């Protein structure tokens, strides 16, 4: 249905092959969070890898930063309809975390957990093969607290609520257990190119 009198802005139309349906380009970096912004000190920071309820490996900030680093520049897409192009991150890809722990793929499903109690589910196949990282810097600087610093998950090919802020662990689960927003009506997978915004999209 054409909306009478609506023309829209031209911003980003020449890059429409990079902007999924229903999204619009932004230059700034909006912040959306379900609760207060936590304060996480790197001195206290720990990252835990679990299989089910069993912790397999725990890294502190120094140990985690000693893992191989990878750079990723990607377009990101938020379910609230903004997209931002060419965001530059550096961190540890999930493959390197699993390799350091001597774990391959005990199950096909992963829940990411965070300092503020947030969680989100992502299939292992969307985290491995260099597709995702625990990001430790953004645009060459430590990640600002508002954007999930000191560390956030980055799964840039899915809606950005999957890229959990203030991440502190990954947990392999037997089945695809839903995370925070996925339990509250959002799509369990969240592919922006298929507009999987809400549960039944």
């Amino acid at each position, binding site marked *: 249905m054409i909306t009478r009198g609506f023309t829209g802005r031209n911003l980003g139309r020449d890059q429409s092959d990079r902007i999924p349906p229903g999204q619009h380009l932004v230059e700034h970096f*909006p912040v959306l969070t*379900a609760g*207060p912004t936590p304060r996480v000190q790197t001195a206290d920071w720990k990252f835990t890898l679990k299989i089910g309820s069993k912790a397999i490996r725990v890294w502190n900030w120094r140990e985690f930063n000693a893992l191989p680093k990878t750079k990723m520049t990607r377009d990101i897409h938020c379910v609230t*309809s903004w997209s931002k192009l060419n965001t530059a991150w550096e961190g540890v890809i999930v493959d390197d975390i699993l390799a350091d722990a001597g774990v391959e793929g005990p199950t096909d499903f992963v829940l990411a957990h965070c300092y503020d109690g947030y969680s989100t589910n992502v299939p292992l196949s969307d985290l491995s093969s260099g597709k995702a990282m625990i990001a430790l810097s953004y645009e060459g600087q430590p990640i600002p607290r508002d954007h999930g610093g000191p560390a956030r998950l980055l799964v840039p090919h899915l809606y950005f609520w999957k890229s959990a802020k203030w991440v502190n662990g990954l947990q392999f689960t037997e089945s695809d257990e839903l995370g925070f927003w996925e339990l509250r009506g959002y799509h369990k997978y969240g592919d922006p190119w298929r507009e999987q915004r*809400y549960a*039944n999209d």
Partner: protein
Amino acid sequence: MTEAGARSASWQTCAIAEIIQQTPSIKSYFLRLSEPFAHTAGQHVDVRLTASDGYVAMRSYSIASAPSASSVIELTIERLPDGEVSPFFHDIAAVGDEIELRGPFGRHFVWPERATGPILLIGAGSGVVPLMAMIRQRRVLSQTVATALLLSTRTRRDVLFADELLASEMADPKFMLALAITRERAERASDFARRIDSAMVADLVARLPSMPTHVFVCGSNPFVNVASDATVMAGLGAAVIKTERYGG
């Protein structure tokens, strides 16, 4: 909850039944749904606009109205000078125009079905919209849970729903209203003439019969950060604080 999503997730066409100028920069749009739905206060809808060349713009807007048997919902939209969709609503949309929307969505920032204790609402500017829906739902359902609203704006004329909020406070001893006006004097003894801080939140908490067990904070990201930090400093646990940040 996914069932509610399943029933309501398809796009529908609705007609603008009425437009009301609320403040210099904020208007309410009363939309008649073709497929009426029941929402919970705090939920939002997605609005979709389509240009003649096929370009589509989508935005989420909180519902300002309480759930009701009526097929009309109220969206209250602030005109953002560099926006794409809000200037269309303010400058072009007219009564009778058709708009596509779907919803309701959101199961986090919503009025509790059964409150376990007093409720503290904190908003700034148009951030009061989902909080107003909560205050209206509380009133419509004749709920008596003690509820306080701390609302920050620059001037008194920027206070959205001012008449209704003042009337609610007069009519209901269990509803408390405090305005934090940042660029003018406070007129009422219960109001403040400064930016929100932890002393102010503590003052509001003290007006409630016991510590709030639900806190809802809505506004811009900088405001929500200041307000939620102030709430934590006033002694409330982060786990009881739900936030919604505008500007996405």
